[in-house]
């Protein structure tokens, strides 16, 4: 399932996939795979993404 919340939060911060990837220390393709729902990140990476985007884990990764 696509992670549209992550994509929206990234867009709200005006960050490209590459910028977010550089900030959390992964490749752009990894961020792309997470947004497309093709890769399930570890909690460590989820936390790093949340810190950069200023969101909570629930806001970005909890499926309603």
């Amino acid at each position: 399932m696509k992670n549209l919340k992550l994509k929206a939060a990234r867009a709200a911060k005006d960050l490209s996939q590459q910028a977010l990837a550089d900030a959390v220390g992964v490749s752009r393709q990894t961020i792309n795979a997470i947004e497309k729902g093709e890769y399930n990140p570890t909690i460590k990476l989820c936390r790093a993404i949340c810190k950069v985007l200023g969101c909570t884990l629930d806001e970005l990764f909890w499926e309603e």
Partner: protein
Amino acid sequence: MDPWILIILLVIAFAVVLAAAGRDKADYDERQWQVQLRAYRAAFWVFLAFVLGFGLIELFVGEILETLSVALAGMILSLTLHALICICGDAYLKLKASRPRFLALTTLILLLYLCNVLFFQDGPWLHGDQFSGRSIYLLAAGHFLVVDVAYFARYLYDRRGGCE
């Protein structure tokens, strides 16, 4: 000192220098490790299947290639498969590695192998049931050709924005 021991020591020293030089660079990320593990697994099983298949053919049909030559061909095949899976999953190079430099290097190696096969090796392709040096160079050139083409395609795809 035995020249083989000297060569092994030089290779170890070279590996240590390379490891020390790359220590400060970022490594692979968690998704890339996962892709690499999948690639190792696929390469391992393909190698086993290749050797087993040749073994069965030899058992029922007769010997085609000598065991070491079969193992060498299987290794190059599985190495190429591993590279392909990693390239498709963008897990072949480290995060901070320079892609153009890698492409230039693999293209140079490919050209050297091809030049060697075409202009400097004029012996037979097989010595009885064993690969000759010429065919081993050709196999290595084939590996680098596949890696080069696949990486170039991936590089172009990513430069055009990938699937963002």
